[in-house]
């Protein structure tokens, strides 16, 4: 058995009262493909940041080549041959591939003048070593995601890497691109370079890795050769429980389903989606999934009035509506919880109260002057009914946890008397405990207040557990519809895979 390249021994890390890593040990051998599995918020990124020297652990030790390393800094980590490829690839989008590849070498050699021939030669060599065909003079932003990822890998390998850490590398790739990537990863492995694959996708982990470490809530819960694992086992380790069968059920009332809350008939938009027909009744939670670029986000944005110029009909409670602006959509009773909470959902530098009231100010103002009593009673009520954990609504929303922040966004929409709630990735970046609470809030809203909920998510499990129906989109069309009670996660994932 060969010696480990890097070992983390009993690592502890705390952040302001949160025990992010609790006695985590991990060892990676040279030339090994190792998977680090865990849900969002389980501590995967913290582990990466400890290895790359960004965070200093509060306890435990790090050994590289059997030697204990104190005070691992980012620079020391790179010098030891550890390279991280983050999800955003950290490339300079406005520079060419060659410039991106050569930059580090040029800087390390402290060159003050630019020799373009040298830069191109360096880049050429790096790309050839990886066996990929990318034009070195192309601007990085013009490349597809997969191309940018390859540039990032090529760059990482240029500096004598011994361990390549890849953070969720397959998220934005098609099935074919994933296969290309895996081919390259195996090539890298043959050169004796270890790869740490950070992921939450079962199939891919089982396919590529030799060993798997699973962490949950900052603790290592399982470790072993990949052959000892199967999908169900990994899920059980990641979530800590078997998938419960208490999905969300909805039955049409006795007197028949009645008028749907939201009805789309032949909804189309050039280049985004075409001929969508669906209906969501009061109290229904309908899941919508599909690959990146399937058109699902565009549908949500169209319903929210952000993509004017669609054709086809939208009816709310039987009344035809035209949604060409966000204001029209809100007036029609549509609420949208956006994909990226931090950049699209929240006003981080402002108080919880202001975040909750952002959309409601107009309706609680008389002659433009805000009714302050009304404002404070509304926010107090929302903070209580959604149990947002804060002593006061004057606290800045940026100081809340992800789960509480998401509740603030939902609270904003509850005040607008929304009838249709569209959620895009409602629990991305939310810790496991909060996730369940947000799901409960959404279910309650649908069941008790008769909202029609459209839940868009990559997390198929989330849809199966919380929706009564699930729709799949591919290339701008609705291609499948499932009754959530009669389907399991694996079958849907399998169908999604076949689209790639």
């Amino acid at each position, binding site marked *: 058995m060969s010696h480990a390249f890097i070992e983390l021994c009993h690592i502890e890390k705390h952040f302001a009262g949160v025990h992010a890593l609790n006695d985590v040990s991990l060892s990676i051998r040279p030339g090994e493909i190792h998977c680090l599995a865990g849900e969002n918020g389980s501590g995967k990124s913290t582990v990466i940041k400890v290895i790359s020297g960004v965070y200093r652990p509060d306890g435990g030790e790090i050994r590289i080549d059997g030697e204990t390393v104190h005070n691992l800094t980012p620079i020391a980590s790179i010098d030891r041959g550890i390279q991280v490829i983050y999800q955003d690839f950290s490339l300079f989008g406005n520079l060419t591939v060659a410039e991106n590849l050569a930059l580090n070498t040029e800087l390390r050699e402290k060159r003050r003048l630019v020799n373009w021939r040298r830069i191109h030669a360096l880049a050429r060599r790096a790309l050839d070593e990886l066996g990929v065909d990318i034009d070195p003079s192309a601007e990085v932003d013009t490349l597809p995601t997969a191309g940018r990822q390859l540039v990032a890998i090529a760059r990482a390998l240029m500096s004598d890497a011994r361990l390549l850490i890849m953070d969720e590398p397959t998220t934005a790739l098609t099935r074919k691109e994933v296969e290309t990537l895996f081919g390259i990863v195996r090539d890298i492995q043959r050169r004796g370079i270890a790869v740490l694959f950070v992921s939450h996708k079962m199939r891919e982990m089982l396919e590529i890795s030799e060993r798997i470490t699973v962490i949950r809530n900052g603790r290592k819960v399982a470790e072993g050769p990949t052959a000892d694992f199967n999908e169900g086992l990994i899920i059980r380790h990641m979530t800590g429980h078997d998938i419960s069968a208490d999905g969300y059920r909805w039955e049409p009332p006795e007197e028949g389903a009645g008028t749907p809350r939201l009805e789309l008939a032949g909804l189309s938009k050039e280049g985004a989606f075409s001929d969508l027909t669906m209906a969501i009744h009061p109290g229904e939670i309908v899941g919508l999934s599909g690959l990146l670029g399937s058109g699902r986000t565009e549908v949500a944005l169209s319903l929210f009035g*952000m993509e004017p110029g669609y054709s086809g009909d939208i009816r709310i409670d039987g009344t035809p509506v035209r949604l060409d602006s*966000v*204001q029209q*959509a*809100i007036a029609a009773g549509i609420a*949208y919880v*956006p994909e990226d909470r931090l*950049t*699209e*959902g*929240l*006003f*981080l*530098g*402002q108080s919880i109260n*202001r975040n909750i*009231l*952002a*959309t409601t*100010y*107009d309706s609680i*103002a008389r002659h*433009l*002057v*805000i009714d*302050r009593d009304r404002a404070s009673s509304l926010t107090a009520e929302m903070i209580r009914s959604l149990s947002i954990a804060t*002593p*006061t609504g*004057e*606290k800045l929303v940026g100081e809340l946890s992800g789960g509480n922040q998401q509740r603030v966004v939902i609270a*904003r929409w509850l005040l607008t008397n929304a009838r249709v709630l569209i959620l895009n990735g409602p629990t991305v970046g939310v810790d496991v405990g909060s996730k369940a609470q947000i799901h409960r809030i959404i279910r309650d809203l649908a069941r008790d207040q008769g909202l029609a909920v459209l839940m868009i998510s990559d997390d198929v499990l989330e849809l199966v557990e919380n929706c009564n129906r699930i729709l799949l989109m591919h290339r701008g069309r609705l291609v499948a519809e499932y009754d959530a009670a009669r389907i399991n996660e694996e079958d849907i994932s399998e169908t999604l895979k076949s689209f790639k």
Partner: protein
Amino acid sequence: MKYSLPDFRRLMSRDNNIVQLIVMTIAIFLIMAALNPDKFLRYYNFESITYLFPELGVLSIAMLVAMLTGGIDLSVIGIANLSGILAGLFFHAVYQSADPSGGVGVVALGVLLALSVGAAAGALNGFLITRLRVTPILATLGTGQVFTGLALVLTGGPAIVGFPPAWDFIGNGKILGLATPFVLFVIIACAMSFILSRTTFGLNLLLIGTNPKAAVFAGLRKGRMVFFSYLTTGLLASTAGIILSGRTNAAKSDYGTSYLLQAILIAVLGGTNPAGGKGTVAGISIAVVALMFLSSGFQILRFSNHLIDFIWGAFLLLVIAINAFRNRVR
């Protein structure tokens, strides 16, 4: 409502900036008083400050409004001068000096004219920024040049003089023993403070400045609100122009050019975040008083005007550096 300790601490830290400003103002006051007590501590000195600071104060509030959404308005001086000049030309055309009322009626019309010039100029800025999506700094740099150029063409260079007495009252008169400009400033500051903190317009500006993208997703009418913010800035700038031209009893295309940098300095010093989303009229008001103490102290100490300009520039850089440092520490 329960009043717990962390709330109180938060309140203190939120108003930290105001406390700091007050301390700084008192420090400047004490230093200047110590350096030259005879001249600085005279009643006349303070009275002249109450005549001088309002025009700069109103310009700074105008700058605050533009900065709230992360923009800036470099055309405020151009708007102020153009407003004064057009009012002056209007008086030349219609006002007879024999008017026993001092031209109150004519001046009222002149004020309206000046304000509509400000509104039109602000609307032009707003149009360029929200409709044509020109960066605020470039749009207002351009329009500022246009307004100043227009003013120069209209006057041919020299100052327009000979305003009616009622116009002079706006800049040099007294209401209840207080300088008219000072009274105007207090009214404008209170009104703007109310608008920014208690109306949908003001809160929308703060939210848009904090995160323009989230504002769109929250259904705020971003374009319209930003447009109105530049309209407001234009109105405030022309008000400053009226006070300036009333005080000097003249209007010229290149009056008050050093006010531009000072208005930015005061806005930033007063706690406005140039990136948007943060800033109060109270902060601006204290900062402008602090700067006036400093400026009058320099005058008394007979610093040259060029040196004073240099000091303003250096002071601005210092304040920005301190703010950046404080934000980083946090």
